[in-house]
Each structure stands twice: as structure tokens, then as C-alpha cells.
């Protein structure tokens, strides 16, 4: 499917068109600037080459001219900046109701786990025409998730989540590269993103799965004893986690923060850092006791407690995987 000598990368996501348009605009602008400067240099160099008896004409300079060629480029730069910022913002803000995939990077492989429970290594299957949000973390060093055909790149850091998203538009197999140097087999940390037509994707999805990630998380929640304090019926020693995700939380020190993936992650690993108002800092840390995958499952479970039954995401998950609703807590 690859040509031997491509000059333009394939375009397979909604973001690709935006980035390409900006890139082409930049090519035109800088091409014109280059043309202007080069032709002036070449013309002057030829026209005013040294001739015997002809002296150079001294010119001191010209403030209006200096201002002109400072302000006009600055204006053009501001256009580029604004355009770039818009494209960037769009691609940094995952739409609500995206299908979620948890990504764990390690030297030197990509481990991907769909919210529906499918696990993959170095290969990610996604359907055409759906927003896919990647919740990524690393087990060791910094990696970077790069799919050239999607014009999408995000570093994957140890110790926290970073988020990226895309909306594939064309079926096919595309390169997945690690672009942050990560050691010996950095160039071997590559894989494929397989974009499938929805029907094929459903078929693929119905293959083996251990049940939705949130269900795994729920089992862990019970096994690790979280459920004894974080109760949903009566007031436990820990806050009730029903409906917490995505909502503002008032902390003991008076600050208010939004309960996002990173907050849940931090609260499991470093419970004392941001204690909810009205609770005592009594929770033990799970740092070093659970793997990144287990952590992801717990995060997915806490998130599922805030999902309205029959919400967009869960319904697609059900439809796709044929699994029972992961949202069965109550």
C-alpha cells in the first residue's frame, strides 16, 4: 500500500486536513518570502556587480522601511499563530462521548486496551467515523504517540496521563511511531493503526475480550478493599465516588479542582495530596502495589460510575462488544 517514494503523507483523520491546510498556507507564505528575498539578492548581486570606476552609492537606512518590514511580517506571523492555535486547540480537546482507549507505553512496545476490554499490542483497531480518545501513560521513560496519517502526536509520560484524540476518516493501515527517544529499540517501538469500516470493526470487536475495562476495575475495587470505605449506600470513611468524575471537587485546603483522569490517578497513588473536604487523610497509597493496567481499570471504573445508564459511550460499547453494561454498580 505504500509507494516507494511518497511526497505527501496519507490523510486519514479530520485533523489531517486542518494541519495540511495550515501547512500549505505556510508553504505559500514562506515560499513567497523566499522568492522575494532570493530574487532581490540575485538581482542586486547581478545588477550591482563591481564595475571599474563605478562606486557604491551609500544609503544610511530608512526608518519607515524598517518599520514596514517589521510590522508586515509580524502581522503575517499573527495570522499564522492564530490559525495554528485554533488547529492545536481543536486537537487538544477531545469531544465528549469519545470511545476511549487506554494506552500504556513501555520500553519498547505499545499496550492498548479498549474501554470495551479488548487488548492489543503495537496495533490499534479503530472504526472509521468515530471520535477516539487516548488516555496514555508510560511505565518507564517518556514516549510519544505519533500517527503521521492522523497528524497527531502526544508525548506519553510516566506518572501521569496525557490525552489525545482523533477521528479517522479513511480505512487503511497506518504507521504508529514512537517519536520521543526512549532507548535502544526506540525505532522498533512502532506499530499500526488499523482503521476499519464500522461493520468490520464490530466483527473484530466481538472477538475475545475479558469484559469491559470498567468491569475489571470493579472487581479490583472490591479485591483491593476500596469498596469498604468508598461506599455508595451510607457515608463511608472515603467519599462516595458516584457521579464524581468530571465534576468539581472541594478540597480540604479550600481549593476546588475538577475530578479528571489525572486526579483519580493521583488520589489512588498519593491519597494525601488532594484530600476531599470533610474527609481525613487515612487512605493508604497504592503506589507500587498495582500495575498501570490495573490503575487504568480502576480509573475506568470510577469514570463509569458517573456515566448515565444508556449514555452515548456505554451504548456504543454494548452494541460493539455485546457485553452487558459495565455500569452495574447500584
Amino acid at each position, binding site marked *: 500500500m505504500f509507494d516507494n517514494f511518497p511526497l*505527501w503523507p496519507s490523510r486519514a483523520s479530520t485533523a489531517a486536513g486542518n494541519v495540511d491546510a495550515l*501547512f500549505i498556507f505556510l508553504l505559500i507564505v514562506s515560499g513567497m518570502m523566499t522568492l522575494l528575498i532570493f530574487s532581490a539578492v540575485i538581482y542586486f548581486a547581478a545588477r*550591482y556587480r563591481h564595475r571599474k570606476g*563605478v562606486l*557604491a552609492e551609500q544609503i544610511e537606512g530608512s526608518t519607515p522601511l524598517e518599520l514596514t518590514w517589521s510590522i508586515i511580517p509580524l502581522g503575517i506571523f499573527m495570522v499564522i499563530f492564530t490559525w495554528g492555535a485554533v*488547529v492545536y486547540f481543536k486537537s487538544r480537546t477531545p469531544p465528549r462521548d469519545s470511545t476511549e482507549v487506554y494506552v500504556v507505553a513501555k520500553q519498547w512496545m505499545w499496550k492498548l486496551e479498549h474501554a470495551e476490554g479488548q487488548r492489543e499490542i503495537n496495533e490499534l483497531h479503530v472504526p472509521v467515523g468515530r471520535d477516539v480518545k487516548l488516555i496514555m501513560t508510560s511505565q518507564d521513560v517518556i514516549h510519544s504517540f505519533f500517527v503521521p496519517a492522523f497528524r497527531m*502526536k502526544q508525548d506519553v*509520560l510516566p506518572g501521569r496521563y496525557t490525552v489525545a484524540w482523533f477521528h479517522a476518516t479513511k480505512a487503511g493501515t497506518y504507521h504508529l511511531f514512537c517519536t520521543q527517544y526512549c532507548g535502544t529499540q526506540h525505532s522498533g517501538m512502532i506499530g499500526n493503526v488499523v482503521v476499519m469500516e464500522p461493520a468490520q470493526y464490530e466483527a473484530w470487536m466481538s472477538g475475545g475480550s475479558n469484559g469491559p475495562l470498567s468491569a475489571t476495575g470493579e472487581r479490583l475495587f472490591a479485591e483491593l478493599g476500596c469498596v469498604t470505605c468508598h461506599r455508595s449506600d451510607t457515608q463511608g470513611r472515603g467519599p462516595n465516588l458516584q457521579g464524581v468524575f468530571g465534576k468539581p471537587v472541594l478540597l480540604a485546603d479550600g481549593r476546588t479542582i475538577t475530578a479528571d483522569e489525572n486526579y483519580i490517578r493521583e488520589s489512588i497513588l498519593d491519597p494525601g495530596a488532594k484530600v476531599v473536604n470533610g474527609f481525613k487523610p487515612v487512605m493508604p497509597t497504592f503506589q507500587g502495589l498495582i500495575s498501570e493496567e490495573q490503575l487504568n481499570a480502576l480509573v475506568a471504573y470510577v469514570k463509569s460510575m458517573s456515566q448515565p445508564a444508556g449514555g452515548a459511550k456505554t451504548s456504543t460499547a454494548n452494541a460493539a462488544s455485546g457485553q452487558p453494561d459495565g455500569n452495574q454498580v447500584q
Partner: protein
Amino acid sequence: MATATTVQPVERENYLNKEHGLGSWLLTTDHKRIALLYLISITFFFFIGGLFALLIRLELLTPAGDLVGADTYNKLFTMHGQVMVFFFLIPSIPAVLGNFLVPMMIGAKDLAFPRINLLSWYIYIIAGVMMLHCIATGGVDTGWTFYTPFSTAFSNSKVIEAGLAIFVAGFSSILTGLNFIVTIHRMRAPGMTWTRLPLFIWAHYATSIIQVLGTPVVAITLVLVVAERALHLGIFDPKLGGDPLLFQHLFWFYSHPAVYIMILPSMGVVTEVIACFSRKRIFGYSFVALSSIAIAVFGFLVWAHHMFVAGISVYAALVFSILSYAVAVPSAVKVFNWTATLFKGSIHYDAPMLYAFGFLGLFTMGGLTGLFLSSLGVDMHVHDTYFVIAHFHYIMVGGALMGYLGGLHFWWPKISGKLYPEGWARLAALIVFLGFNLTFFPQFILGYLGMPRRYYEYPPEFQVLNVLSTAGATVLGVGYLLPMIYFLWSMRYGKPAPDNPWQAAGLEWQTQSPPTTFNFEEEPVVTWEAYNYDEIDAGHKQEEVKVVG
């Protein structure tokens, strides 16, 4: 130009032949001799770094990893970067041409602190020996950027040795910058006002500000990396509560301005060369001067554009993106002013001018592709790909190195007292220009196609462009060997150089070639503006002092 300073003794005693023996070189405090010590040392490191580059390009000839092992390849690009950046480019123009010329251009006998100047060379040599020892005993594989936590907790190579070598090298750079700032403030000859300074001096002044204020930050950052690696403090280690991005902030706070340490002096050289070979005063002198300072100051405000996809706040990314465009303006102003200087000039095509033309072309392309990278939207795609590699090589090799070579040719008669062979020099300039473009232009395309940097193996569809690039690197290598050969040749066989072979303005041309130890027979008194080519060419010999408009 006749001034009181061109009295020539019959024997032509000069700084080269005044004293003999190794001791007279190793204990010298003469800024010109120290410049030559630097010239020899950085040339050595240039060829070490160049050798690594050649091996990298050979490995990338085929998609599979076949020439060297993966770990070796990783060490090659790491040490190529570290050697070229810290041991060649940063000292290149300031420590060689700047050291030689700054005192002469302002009419001083020496730098303000000659012994500190010698000390800075010794520090450089100590650092260099440490780096060579590190290379010889296994090398380092972190990438020249030392990103944590890979460097502090995962790499199995000599991170501490390399970090300490670069830490030490930093002090050499700081002392050079400190010496220049004090010299430019305190040692100017009578009449050498700020507006009469050659723009080379302005460029070096701006460079020195960065060296003095930026280098200490990378020094302390490397101390923390070394301490973290040795003792597991947790400052950059997320497992212990640290933030790996803090390392990147501190590292780029220096390492982005460091690019301007490389390019600003080169801009200074090009300004001198363009003025001389178009026989004109530089168009918009004060704008060119102030743009150097503006680049130095704005250069400190943009570092996180290396981190747009690293996981920083999107709001911070916006701030750093818009500030990055601010630094592009003074660079553009310089290019426009150089172009305007050519207008109605009387242009000669000697080798230094060919390098200056080359600089103009390559720097323009390097600068404009910088706009792509500081655009948040495009950077998401091209960050950490070959697009970045191509961009910064256009700046650091196409810009800084072209300027360095141009300057070396321009001042070679003054430095060595001999003329280099002009025909060969023009040929070399042409070969370097063509070889450079063949090497690095394909990498822009590779980058947009998505080929990541620091890849030992790559998908086969990228091969054609990589082969082109490797072919270019071979041509480029020949282009760099040529000057090395004919400069050495000219030292023995070259024609003796007159005091002012280019009929150039500037105090350094008004003393003999090579200069005496104290540069001038009598302290010069400056009564003319910089770049008074009209007076030189009209043969008026400074009868009237020109008034600035």
C-alpha cells in the same frame, strides 16, 4: 587607508613569530594566540563530530539496521550532537574569531582579562578530554538533550561523565562571554562610540549576554541530573514524585538561547563581509545592531516551543508560540537589511562573499521553517521528526557554520599573514552549498512524511530520500575537507598577505598582517563611522568625518 597605526617595522615582528616554543603558546595570554589554540581544538572536535555524522548517514542508507548496532547508533547521534553543539558550534565563532577580533576591532591591546581568557581555553580542554574519555570508554546514548527520566534512571551509558564534561565546558563559555562584555564596555579606544562599533561587536555583545545568563542554568540542571542519577533524589523522577518536564523547562531555558549563541556571531560575520564586498555602509545600522540585542532578549522567552506536545499546559503553549513569532521579527529585519545593503552596491564575488550569500539563502530557509515549528498546529505533526532535524541544521550548519567559514576566509590573511587560494575557496563554497542542500532538503520532506528523528531503522518507503541525504553528506564532507587542506597549504606556500587585502573598513585592517602582540603600534583614535567604504573607495582617507543621518 592611512592612519597613524600602519607604521611597519622592517622585520615585521608579529604575534606569531615573536616567541617560539610550546611554552610560549600554552602559557600565552595574547588573545590572538588563544584564538589559534581554540581554532585547533575546535577543528579537532569538528572532525570528530563530523565522523559521527558520516557514520549516522551511512547507517541510514538502508532501512534496516546493518552497519552498526542499535546502541552504537544511539550513541553516535548523541555524541554527534553533544560534540558539535558544546565543543564546536558554541565556541566556534566567539572563541576563535571573536577572541581574535573583538579587541582589535575596538582598538584594544587585549581582552579585559587575558589570564581568564587562557583559563577558559584550559577549561575547554579539560572538558574536551573528559568528553573524549567518555566517548572512548563507551559513550552516552541519551540524545544530546539528556531527557529525564531516561538519562537519570534508565540509560546504561556514561551519562554522568558526559554531563560533567558539558558542565565544565559551560564555564569556558561563561568566561568568554564575561570577558567580551567587560572588554566591550571598558576597553574601547577613544572615539569608538557604541554607534561606531562594527556590527560584529554588537553581535558578540548580544551573544555574551546569553552565554552569561543562560549557561549557568544548564550547568545547574546538569548537576541535578548527575545527582539524580547517582543518588536517586527524585527531582526529575516521576516514580519519586518529581516532574520530568521540569528538566525540559530548565534544559531549554539555556538550550534554546544557545541556538542564538551559535547564530548571532555568524550574523555578525556576515554583516562585516556583506558591507566589505558590496563596499557599503550597512543599511539600517542601528536596526541591525538592536535586532541582535532583541534576539538575545526574546531568545529567552520562547524555550517551551520545544515542548508543545510534551504535556505542558495548552495555555502555556499559546504564550510560547506567540513569543516565538516575536523573536522571528528581528531575524527577518536582519535579512531584509542585508538584502537592502546590496542595493546600489559594488559587489565583489570573493569567497567570503560567496559564503555570505550561502548564509543568506540557508538562513532564510532555516528561519522560515522555524515559523512552521512555532505554529502550534503544524508542530503537532512535525515535532521530533526529520523536519526539525532539517530546520536546525539549516540554522546551525547552513547559518552558523557558513558564517564561521566565511569569517575564517575573510580574516585568514589577518590571522595567518598569508593569502588562501581564491579559486579553491570559491569551489569549496559552492560544494558546501550544494552538498548542504542535498543533505538536508530531503529531510524536510521526510519530516512531513512522518519519519521520526533518532530512528536506527525506518520503514522502506523513506529510503529514496535518505539515500539522497547520505549522498549530500558525502559531498558536504568533501566541501569541509577542502578548506582544511588549503588553509594548511597556505600557511606554508601562500602568498604573503598585505595589511588590508580587501580594502576593508575596521580597525583590525589598519594594523599589520599578522598583527603585533599588542595589536597596534599606538593606541588608535577613532574619528570615523563604521563601514566608511565611501571614504576608503574615494581615497579621501578620512579627511572629513561623516555625520550619521
